Protein backbone atom coordinates (compact mmCIF):
# COMPACT_ATOMS: atom_id res chain seq x y z
CA UNK A 1 0.00 0.00 0.00
CA UNK A 2 1.29 3.50 -0.83
CA UNK A 3 2.85 5.56 1.88
CA UNK A 4 3.57 9.22 1.27
CA UNK A 5 6.96 9.28 2.94
CA UNK A 6 6.96 12.88 4.24
CA UNK A 7 3.61 12.40 5.96
CA UNK A 8 4.64 9.55 8.24
CA UNK A 9 7.51 9.98 10.72
CA UNK A 10 10.36 7.66 9.73
CA UNK A 11 10.70 6.09 13.20
CA UNK A 12 7.05 5.03 13.03
CA UNK A 13 7.29 3.71 9.47
CA UNK A 14 10.24 1.58 10.57
CA UNK A 15 7.96 -0.25 13.04
CA UNK A 16 5.69 -1.75 10.35
CA UNK A 17 5.62 -5.54 10.71
CA UNK A 18 6.97 -5.49 14.25
CA UNK A 19 5.22 -6.89 17.28
CA UNK A 20 5.05 -5.42 20.77
CA UNK A 21 6.02 -7.11 23.99
CA UNK A 22 2.99 -8.54 25.83
CA UNK A 23 0.94 -5.82 27.51
CA UNK A 24 -0.20 -5.72 31.12
CA UNK A 25 -2.29 -8.58 32.47
CA UNK A 26 -6.00 -7.69 32.67
CA UNK A 27 -8.35 -9.47 35.06
CA UNK A 28 -11.94 -9.43 33.82
CA UNK A 29 -14.12 -8.36 36.72
CA UNK A 30 -17.89 -8.73 36.99
CA UNK A 31 -18.26 -5.08 37.98
CA UNK A 32 -16.37 -3.93 34.89
CA UNK A 33 -18.65 -6.01 32.67
CA UNK A 34 -21.75 -4.63 34.42
CA UNK A 35 -20.57 -1.03 34.05
CA UNK A 36 -19.71 -1.58 30.38
CA UNK A 37 -23.13 -3.10 29.65
CA UNK A 38 -24.74 -0.14 31.41
CA UNK A 39 -22.66 2.34 29.41
CA UNK A 40 -23.81 0.84 26.10
CA UNK A 41 -27.39 0.70 27.38
CA UNK A 42 -27.79 -3.09 27.26
CA UNK A 43 -29.78 -4.52 30.18
CA UNK A 44 -29.40 -8.19 29.18
CA UNK A 45 -29.14 -10.00 32.57
CA UNK A 46 -26.37 -12.34 31.34
CA UNK A 47 -23.99 -9.41 31.82
CA UNK A 48 -24.82 -9.01 35.52
CA UNK A 49 -26.89 -11.90 36.98
CA UNK A 50 -25.11 -15.24 37.67
CA UNK A 51 -28.43 -17.15 37.59
CA UNK A 52 -29.44 -15.72 34.22
CA UNK A 53 -25.91 -16.34 32.93
CA UNK A 54 -25.68 -19.95 34.14
CA UNK A 55 -27.06 -21.55 30.92
CA UNK A 56 -24.34 -19.62 29.04
CA UNK A 57 -21.52 -20.89 31.23
CA UNK A 58 -21.48 -17.88 33.55
CA UNK A 59 -21.32 -14.13 33.22
CA UNK A 60 -20.06 -13.07 29.80
CA UNK A 61 -19.04 -9.68 28.48
CA UNK A 62 -20.73 -7.82 25.60
CA UNK A 63 -19.06 -8.30 22.20
CA UNK A 64 -17.13 -5.02 22.26
CA UNK A 65 -15.84 -5.40 25.84
CA UNK A 66 -12.38 -6.18 24.41
CA UNK A 67 -11.94 -2.41 24.13
CA UNK A 68 -11.74 -2.18 27.95
CA UNK A 69 -8.83 -4.64 28.00
CA UNK A 70 -5.62 -2.64 28.05
CA UNK A 71 -3.64 -3.55 24.96
CA UNK A 72 -0.12 -2.42 24.10
CA UNK A 73 -1.14 -0.46 21.00
CA UNK A 74 1.71 1.32 19.29
CA UNK A 75 1.25 4.95 20.36
CA UNK A 76 0.41 7.61 17.80
CA UNK A 77 3.61 9.00 16.29
CA UNK A 78 4.60 12.64 16.73
CA UNK A 79 2.69 13.97 13.74
CA UNK A 80 4.14 17.17 12.28
CA UNK A 81 0.95 17.99 10.38
CA UNK A 82 -2.83 17.62 10.63
CA UNK A 83 -5.47 18.48 13.17
CA UNK A 84 -6.60 15.24 14.71
CA UNK A 85 -6.17 11.46 14.78
CA UNK A 86 -9.47 9.58 14.70
CA UNK A 87 -10.43 5.95 15.09
CA UNK A 88 -11.60 4.84 11.64
CA UNK A 89 -12.55 1.22 12.16
CA UNK A 90 -12.36 -1.95 14.21
CA UNK A 91 -12.56 -5.61 13.30
CA UNK A 92 -13.01 -8.22 15.99
CA UNK A 93 -12.69 -11.95 15.31
CA UNK A 94 -13.84 -14.04 18.26
CA UNK A 95 -12.71 -17.52 19.28
CA UNK A 96 -15.05 -17.18 22.25
CA UNK A 97 -16.67 -14.35 24.27
CA UNK A 98 -14.74 -12.73 27.09
CA UNK A 99 -15.96 -13.97 30.48
CA UNK A 100 -15.85 -12.77 34.07
CA UNK A 101 -12.77 -14.31 35.67
CA UNK A 102 -10.69 -14.38 32.49
CA UNK A 103 -7.11 -13.24 32.91
CA UNK A 104 -6.08 -11.71 29.58
CA UNK A 105 -2.89 -10.52 28.00
CA UNK A 106 -2.32 -9.07 24.52
CA UNK A 107 0.40 -8.48 21.99
CA UNK A 108 0.03 -5.96 19.18
CA UNK A 109 1.48 -5.99 15.68
CA UNK A 110 1.76 -2.88 13.51
CA UNK A 111 0.29 -4.23 10.28
CA UNK A 112 0.29 -1.36 7.80
CA UNK A 113 0.37 2.39 7.20
CA UNK A 114 -1.08 3.90 4.03
CA UNK A 115 -2.19 7.22 2.56
CA UNK A 116 -5.46 8.11 0.80
CA UNK A 117 -6.70 11.45 -0.53
CA UNK A 118 -9.39 12.87 1.75
CA UNK A 119 -11.99 15.65 1.41
CA UNK A 120 -9.65 18.29 2.80
CA UNK A 121 -6.18 16.84 2.24
CA UNK A 122 -4.39 13.53 2.69
CA UNK A 123 -5.50 10.88 5.15
CA UNK A 124 -2.95 8.53 6.66
CA UNK A 125 -4.32 5.23 7.98
CA UNK A 126 -2.50 3.11 10.53
CA UNK A 127 -3.63 -0.50 11.04
CA UNK A 128 -2.66 -2.52 14.12
CA UNK A 129 -3.77 -5.98 15.25
CA UNK A 130 -4.01 -7.12 18.85
CA UNK A 131 -4.10 -10.80 19.77
CA UNK A 132 -5.74 -11.34 23.14
CA UNK A 133 -4.92 -14.56 24.99
CA UNK A 134 -6.30 -16.00 28.20
CA UNK A 135 -4.59 -17.56 31.22
CA UNK A 136 -4.20 -20.85 29.28
CA UNK A 137 -2.47 -19.12 26.39
CA UNK A 138 -5.53 -19.64 24.17
CA UNK A 139 -6.54 -16.87 21.81
CA UNK A 140 -9.84 -15.27 22.86
CA UNK A 141 -10.19 -12.52 20.25
CA UNK A 142 -8.17 -10.78 17.55
CA UNK A 143 -8.82 -7.07 17.12
CA UNK A 144 -7.72 -4.93 14.21
CA UNK A 145 -7.74 -1.19 14.84
CA UNK A 146 -7.48 1.46 12.13
CA UNK A 147 -6.64 5.09 12.97
CA UNK A 148 -6.88 7.96 10.47
CA UNK A 149 -4.76 11.09 10.64
CA UNK A 150 -6.15 14.23 8.96
Amino acid at each position, binding site marked *: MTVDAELVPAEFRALIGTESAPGPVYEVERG*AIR*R*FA*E*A*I*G*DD*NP*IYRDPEAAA*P*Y*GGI*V*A*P*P*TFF*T*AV*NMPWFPEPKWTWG*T*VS*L*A*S*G*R*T*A*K*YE*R*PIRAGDVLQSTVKLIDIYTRPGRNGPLVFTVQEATVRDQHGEIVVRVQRAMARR
Partner: protein
Amino acid sequence: MYPVKVTGNQVDVGMQIPSVVKPPMSRVQIAKYAGASGDFNPLHVDEMYATQKAKMKSVIAHGMLSMGFLGHLLTEWVGSPLPVRSLDVRFQNSVYPGDVITLSGQVTAKREEGDLAVLTCQVQAANQDGVVVTSGVAEVALPGEA
Protein backbone atom coordinates in the same frame (compact mmCIF):
# COMPACT_ATOMS: atom_id res chain seq x y z
CA MET B 1 -25.70 -26.14 24.11
CA TYR B 2 -26.63 -22.64 25.33
CA PRO B 3 -30.00 -21.02 24.61
CA VAL B 4 -30.47 -19.00 21.42
CA LYS B 5 -33.41 -16.79 20.47
CA VAL B 6 -33.34 -17.77 16.81
CA THR B 7 -32.14 -20.81 14.88
CA GLY B 8 -30.77 -21.21 11.36
CA ASN B 9 -33.98 -22.69 9.98
CA GLN B 10 -35.83 -19.51 11.05
CA VAL B 11 -33.50 -17.22 9.09
CA ASP B 12 -33.47 -16.54 5.35
CA VAL B 13 -31.11 -14.44 3.29
CA GLY B 14 -32.65 -10.99 2.93
CA MET B 15 -34.23 -11.07 6.40
CA GLN B 16 -34.06 -7.86 8.46
CA ILE B 17 -32.58 -8.08 11.93
CA PRO B 18 -35.03 -6.54 14.44
CA SER B 19 -34.04 -2.87 14.84
CA VAL B 20 -32.93 -1.35 18.12
CA VAL B 21 -33.46 2.37 18.79
CA LYS B 22 -31.25 3.95 21.43
CA PRO B 23 -32.25 6.83 23.73
CA PRO B 24 -30.71 10.16 22.65
CA MET B 25 -26.94 10.28 23.10
CA SER B 26 -25.86 12.37 26.06
CA ARG B 27 -22.63 13.72 27.50
CA VAL B 28 -23.39 11.58 30.57
CA GLN B 29 -23.51 8.40 28.49
CA ILE B 30 -20.28 9.41 26.76
CA ALA B 31 -18.70 9.93 30.20
CA LYS B 32 -19.99 6.56 31.45
CA TYR B 33 -18.62 4.88 28.34
CA ALA B 34 -15.26 6.63 28.74
CA GLY B 35 -15.04 5.28 32.29
CA ALA B 36 -16.19 1.78 31.39
CA SER B 37 -13.86 1.46 28.40
CA GLY B 38 -10.91 3.41 29.77
CA ASP B 39 -10.84 5.70 26.72
CA PHE B 40 -10.46 9.27 27.93
CA ASN B 41 -9.55 10.78 24.57
CA PRO B 42 -10.37 14.49 25.07
CA LEU B 43 -12.50 14.46 21.90
CA HIS B 44 -15.07 12.72 24.08
CA VAL B 45 -14.63 14.27 27.51
CA ASP B 46 -13.19 17.76 27.01
CA GLU B 47 -15.50 20.25 25.30
CA MET B 48 -12.78 22.91 24.97
CA TYR B 49 -10.38 20.48 23.32
CA ALA B 50 -13.06 19.06 20.99
CA THR B 51 -14.30 22.45 19.81
CA GLN B 52 -11.20 24.64 19.90
CA LYS B 53 -8.35 22.27 19.10
CA ALA B 54 -10.08 19.59 17.04
CA LYS B 55 -12.58 22.02 15.47
CA MET B 56 -15.63 19.88 16.17
CA LYS B 57 -19.01 21.29 17.01
CA SER B 58 -19.01 19.56 20.41
CA VAL B 59 -17.59 16.49 22.10
CA ILE B 60 -18.40 13.36 20.13
CA ALA B 61 -19.28 9.85 21.22
CA HIS B 62 -16.62 7.16 20.86
CA GLY B 63 -16.76 5.27 17.57
CA MET B 64 -16.46 2.18 19.74
CA LEU B 65 -19.69 3.12 21.50
CA SER B 66 -21.56 2.80 18.21
CA MET B 67 -19.79 -0.51 17.66
CA GLY B 68 -21.04 -1.49 21.12
CA PHE B 69 -24.53 -0.57 19.93
CA LEU B 70 -24.10 -2.87 16.92
CA GLY B 71 -23.02 -5.63 19.30
CA HIS B 72 -26.27 -4.98 21.16
CA LEU B 73 -28.26 -5.28 17.91
CA LEU B 74 -26.77 -8.74 17.39
CA THR B 75 -27.04 -10.04 20.95
CA GLU B 76 -30.62 -8.78 21.22
CA TRP B 77 -31.43 -10.80 18.10
CA VAL B 78 -29.65 -14.06 18.97
CA GLY B 79 -29.80 -13.88 22.77
CA SER B 80 -26.16 -13.60 23.82
CA PRO B 81 -22.64 -12.88 22.51
CA LEU B 82 -21.85 -16.59 22.19
CA PRO B 83 -22.93 -16.99 18.54
CA VAL B 84 -21.11 -13.84 17.37
CA ARG B 85 -18.00 -14.85 15.41
CA SER B 86 -16.89 -11.50 14.07
CA LEU B 87 -17.84 -7.85 13.85
CA ASP B 88 -16.08 -5.55 11.40
CA VAL B 89 -17.03 -1.86 11.30
CA ARG B 90 -15.98 1.47 9.84
CA PHE B 91 -16.65 4.69 11.74
CA GLN B 92 -18.03 7.05 9.11
CA ASN B 93 -19.66 10.00 10.79
CA SER B 94 -19.56 11.40 14.28
CA VAL B 95 -22.25 10.94 16.89
CA TYR B 96 -23.08 14.10 18.85
CA PRO B 97 -25.00 14.57 22.10
CA GLY B 98 -28.70 14.60 21.23
CA ASP B 99 -28.40 12.17 18.32
CA VAL B 100 -30.89 9.29 18.29
CA ILE B 101 -29.18 6.21 16.90
CA THR B 102 -31.08 3.35 15.25
CA LEU B 103 -29.33 0.02 14.78
CA SER B 104 -30.45 -2.18 11.91
CA GLY B 105 -29.18 -5.00 9.79
CA GLN B 106 -29.91 -7.59 7.16
CA VAL B 107 -28.81 -11.17 6.56
CA THR B 108 -26.86 -11.22 3.30
CA ALA B 109 -25.53 -14.77 3.25
CA LYS B 110 -26.08 -18.12 4.93
CA ARG B 111 -23.95 -21.24 4.81
CA GLU B 112 -23.91 -24.58 6.62
CA GLU B 113 -21.08 -25.69 8.86
CA GLY B 114 -21.95 -29.10 10.30
CA ASP B 115 -25.17 -28.49 12.25
CA LEU B 116 -24.53 -24.78 12.44
CA ALA B 117 -25.92 -22.08 10.16
CA VAL B 118 -23.35 -19.34 9.69
CA LEU B 119 -24.95 -16.03 8.78
CA THR B 120 -23.29 -12.98 7.27
CA CYS B 121 -25.08 -9.74 8.13
CA GLN B 122 -24.72 -6.12 6.98
CA VAL B 123 -25.24 -3.93 10.02
CA GLN B 124 -25.47 -0.21 10.49
CA ALA B 125 -26.00 2.56 13.00
CA ALA B 126 -27.76 5.66 11.65
CA ASN B 127 -28.81 8.91 13.27
CA GLN B 128 -32.19 10.68 13.28
CA ASP B 129 -31.44 12.23 9.86
CA GLY B 130 -30.69 8.84 8.32
CA VAL B 131 -26.96 9.55 8.22
CA VAL B 132 -25.01 6.32 8.67
CA VAL B 133 -22.54 6.82 11.51
CA THR B 134 -21.06 3.33 11.63
CA SER B 135 -21.58 0.32 9.43
CA GLY B 136 -20.06 -3.04 8.76
CA VAL B 137 -20.40 -6.78 8.61
CA ALA B 138 -21.01 -9.38 11.28
CA GLU B 139 -20.81 -13.16 11.24
CA VAL B 140 -23.05 -15.16 13.54
CA ALA B 141 -23.16 -18.97 13.95
CA LEU B 142 -26.49 -20.46 15.06
CA PRO B 143 -27.69 -24.01 15.56
CA GLY B 144 -29.47 -25.09 12.37
CA GLU B 145 -32.58 -25.97 14.31
CA ALA B 146 -33.91 -25.99 17.87
